[in-house]
Each structure stands twice: as C-alpha cells, then as structure tokens.
C-alpha cells in the first residue's frame, strides 16, 4: 500500500522540507496531513515559494535527527 506511506517534499526555492508524518504544527498543519490536503495557495514558511514548486523526495533523514526513527 505505497499510497499509505508518508511522503516528504522539498522546497525548490530554499530546501525547506515538509514531511507528511510530522506536519508543521507550528504553522497549523497537524502531523499526518497529506500533501494533497494542504491548500494550493500554501507557500513555503521560510521563503514564500508556492506549493507547486516543491518536489517529492525519497530521501531518509540524517542520523541523530529526532525524526529519524519514523523515517528510515
């Protein structure tokens, strides 16, 4: 059920990463929020790049990151 796997997205303006598993609680996006459920007019909280200019990436986290255990 690959559709169920949480995915990660990278801002092509600055490199900010969004992880569906983690959401962005500090920006009002709950953990588990799917990319498709984020509004189309949402922008990168760091640099303002529009949602359409993010790229899905299949890259694991660096060792020692607090999120590494959920995202091998």
């Amino acid at each position: 059920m690959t559709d169920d796997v949480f995915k990660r997205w990278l801002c092509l303006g600055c490199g900010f990463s969004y992880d569906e598993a983690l959401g962005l609680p500090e920006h009002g996006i709950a953990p588990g929020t799917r990319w498709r459920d984020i509004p189309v007019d949402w922008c990168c909280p760091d640099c303002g790049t529009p949602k359409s200019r993010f790229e899905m990436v299949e890259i694991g986290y660096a060792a020692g990151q607090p999120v590494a255990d959920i995202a091998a």
Partner: protein
Amino acid sequence: MSNSFVLRAEERGFDKIVSTGATAAYVGGHPDAFITRWSSFNFHDYQDGRPGFGRIRVFGDETFNSPGCSYSMHRHHNFIISAIVLEGKLTHLNTLGNIDELLPGDFYAFSAGSGGFHEELNMQSEPMKAIYLWLIPDRLLLPPTYARGHFDATAGMNRITTLIGSDEGAVPIPQDARVARLVSDAPGTYQYEPRSRGHGVYVFVVEGEVVCDGTLLARRDSKAVWGVDEFVCRTSGGADVLFVETIL
C-alpha cells in the same frame, strides 16, 4: 543506452533581479545594484526548461553588478550550495561563522542541512561573476557544513581536476556527485569516465569551445551525457569547462 541533451547558451532562462521594489529584501545594494542570472534549469520564475539533472537543481551563471550587490542573508535547508568564482571578488557569509572572500579560482560548498543562513555579496565596483550550483543531498537535515577550495589553473592546466566530491584533495559533500574543471590552452583530447552508467555528467563551457561527445559547444553552451562508460571532449585551443557528475 547512451543519452544526452544539449542546452545552448541563449536557451537558458534569464532573470534580472533589481535591488529596489518587490525584490529589495532579496537583493541588497539598492538603488543601483542588480543581479543577472542565466539558469540552466527551472528556478524561481523561470519554469520553462528542465527541472534539473540527476541531483542538480540549480545551475546559475550569475553576475552581481555594483558595489553592495548581494543576495541578502536568508535561510536554507538541505541543499548543497556551491559557488565557483569566475571574476571579481565574492564575500560569502554564513551562520556557521564563516566570512570568506573568494577570488577567481576559489569556490566553496555549503551544505545547509538542518538549517543555515548565508549572504552572497559583491563589495567591489567591478562585477562579480560566479557559477552557482545547488545539489540535493543524500540525507535530509544533516549537520550543516562549509568548506572552501581553490583551483589553480596553472598547475591544473590541460587536465581535468576534481574540485568537489570524494576524490583526494577535493572538497567533500554529502552526495554521490563530483564537480571538476578543465582549463586548456592547447588542442587536446580528454576522456571522461563517469563512476558508472548510472551517473550522468553535465558539461558546461565557461569560456572557449569544446567538442563534447561529438557536439561542438561554444561559450556558455552545455551538454549532459549519461548511460555511457566514457565520453570524449576535444579542445582546439583555449577552453574552460566545468563537469558536474551526479548519480541519476
């Protein structure tokens, strides 16, 4: 199966970013400063070209005009950002604590990882010209790193020298990628062997001309080659060429 694409100089995206109005917070040095950027791949408002090549997302041929011209201090994550200075003097500042002045031949690699700010600044009257390269790393939120290096065109004349990557003497980065440079002052033939057929090489002509894998490339033309064990570049005289090899 071999593959390639050719990108002529004039086919690249072009932006002129001024230091006044809506982009004043982005580009410093108002009122006169401005940056020109020729983009080989889609970036910011230029979205009509290729999205990238392998792990490369940005290849910008940029000029910072007028004293004080800068990309103001701003944050990145994840991307490995490199500048290779061609003309003038670049002052690079970052929140790892580096304040560096880079001259032609100098370059740096800044891996933004879990987060870091940088500023790119020309403090001189003369334009500062540099190639800006962004690569996606092999891990997210790595510890940020910064290192600089120098390409000695005299010592390295007429051979391909690795600037960035895992080769001895090169600046390491957290990605299966390599940046190399060839400065030539005589006719020559150079075989380039990628690490594997799963690697591609983006070849960009800074100055002069080169026949790359059978294609004549003039100044600022480029070609990507992949799926081969090796390919040949021929110079007929003076040439300055960058090679960016990346896992595909």
